[in-house]
């Protein structure tokens, strides 16, 4: 299927011709009775997996089933932070694989995902923070991942709105900076993968909720029951984020997951004032500025498991307290919207990209509060695992069995959230 190419020339030409000749970016097909592979979940991870299945593994008879609209789950609800400065070797390799794919994703997909490596700075407020972050810096450098230590004046130079006075409750004692980290446009990532997958023949089927997983006499996946009728497939990949336990429960698989609401909010738009991404795990704040001018602020998870996609206001207020102390200039900004997404959290805060005990059933889950940054890498490795029925070396450690075998990849301290 030929897609219109995006270029400066095509934008100018269609702009001058009043934008009347744009085509739809992807089809709205009816589901076929059967496919070679099905992906459950039309977020960035699922759409990306479908794209790589078609592009790298030659599997084009593939459909993505999405119960709502594509990119309407956590892909459209996160704070778009991208970084790879994780502590352990397995995690650094996994997240840096993803970061490298981000770097030329727009060119590869011919779609501007607005990847902006503006630098991600993580603040240290205690002696313990300093020790942990310096350990991260050294571990990252051993793994070829850029990360550097900044003293408070250097942090202030990198991010001028930052308050480095010593008289605040949690003064800034230093920071770890990953310059290759940054942000991207979250919706564009879903749309780019959807458009590219569609061009390769992948069917994207929205408003199609999976209600049951049918298996043959040997236990292998045979078909899915959906709200748009049964669809047969011998391979099914689940990329359902917060609903993974629900979907895999249909095949009798129990997972080490708990689904929590994670909230975010944006301010009214202002002129460019914030040049980078700043995170603080100790006092719990994430902040960056979108290209529209809104400050994008990430709050924490609520205390309890839930599927409601909303949380309590005091969680947001806690984050805003920290933001106002670190950046006093934002104290008079009004907040415009807040929302929640449901994130699936594992006990070791590392993801699972793996085969399941059910033949033909694969899962990509457990990304918790940090799945957006991994979108291209996770999709790429998930497609590999589905196509070859075995993990890529990069995701081989990220199995379900690691919990049985005691080989946890304990990034709880490294994920920039005070879990």
């Amino acid at each position, binding site marked *: 299927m030929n897609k219109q190419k995006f270029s400066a020339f095509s934008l100018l030409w269609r702009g001058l011709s009043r934008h009347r000749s744009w085509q739809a970016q992807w089809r709205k097909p009816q589901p076929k009775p059967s496919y070679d592979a099905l992906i459950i979940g039309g977020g960035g991870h699922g759409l990306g997996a479908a794209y790589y299945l078609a592009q790298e593994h030659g599997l084009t008879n593939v459909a993505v089933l999405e119960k709502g609209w594509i990119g309407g789950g956590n892909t459209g609800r996160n704070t778009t932070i991208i970084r790879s400065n994780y502590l352990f070797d397995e995690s650094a390799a996994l997240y840096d694989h993803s970061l490298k794919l981000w770097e030329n994703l727009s060119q590869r997909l011919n779609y501007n995902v607005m990847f902006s490596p503006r630098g991600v700075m993580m603040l240290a407020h205690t002696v313990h923070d300093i020790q942990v972050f310096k350990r991260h810096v050294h571990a990252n450098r051993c793994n070829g991942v850029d990360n550097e230590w900044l003293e408070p004046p250097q942090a202030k130079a990198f991010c001028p709105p930052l308050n480095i006075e010593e008289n605040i409750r949690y003064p800034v004692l230093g920071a770890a900076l990953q310059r290759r980290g940054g942000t991207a446009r979250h919706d564009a990532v879903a749309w780019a993968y959807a458009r590219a997958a569609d061009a390769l023949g992948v069917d994207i089927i929205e408003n199609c909720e999976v209600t049951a997983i049918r298996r043959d006499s040997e236990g292998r996946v045979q078909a899915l029951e959906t709200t748009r009728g049964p669809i047969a497939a011998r391979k099914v990949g689940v990329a359902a984020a917060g*609903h993974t*336990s*629900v979907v895999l429960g249909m095949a009798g698989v*129990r*997972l*080490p*997951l*708990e*689904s929590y609401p994670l909230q975010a909010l944006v301010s009214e738009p202002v002129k460019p004032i914030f040049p980078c991404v700043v995170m603080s795990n100790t006092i719990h704040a994430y902040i960056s500025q979108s290209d529209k001018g809104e400050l994008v602020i990430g709050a924490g998870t609520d*205390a*309890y*498991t*839930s*599927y*409601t996609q909303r949380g*309590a*206001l*005091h969680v947001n207020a806690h984050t805003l307290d920290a933001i106002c102390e670190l950046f006093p200039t934002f104290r008079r900004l009004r907040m415009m919207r807040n929302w929640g997404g449901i994130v*699936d959290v594992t*006990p070791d805060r590392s993801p699972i990209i793996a085969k399941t005990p059910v033949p033909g059933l694969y899962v990509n889950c457990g990304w918790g509060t940090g799945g957006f940054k991994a979108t291209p890498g996770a999709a790429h490795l998930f497609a590999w695992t589905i196509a070859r029925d075995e993990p890529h070396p990069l995701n081989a450690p990220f199995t379900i069995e690691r*919990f*049985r*075998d*005691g080989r946890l990849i304990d990034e709880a301290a490294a994920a920039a959230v005070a879990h």
Partner: protein
Amino acid sequence: MLLIDCPYCGERPEIEFAYGGEAHLERPPNPAELDDQRWAEYLYMRSNTKGVYAERWRHARGCGRFFNALRDTTTDRFLASYKVGEPRPQLSPPAGPAA
């Protein structure tokens, strides 16, 4: 913010409580006899139910006691709370007034 019904103190705001995860997970009486799979089941695998979920809470900034509650995770509505050691209450359908 949720209002949570402590069986000892009555309804209090959520910030007085600490969450304790899934309820009625019994520590196996003799762990040495378990294989790794069943030990991992106990340590890590969770129901993560979408719907009525039995969970532990602790009134950490109140009486300090643990108790259990039934909550619908699709609405966050509490359906019952009960003391540790008591069996999970049977909810008569329909559970509570329709929201």
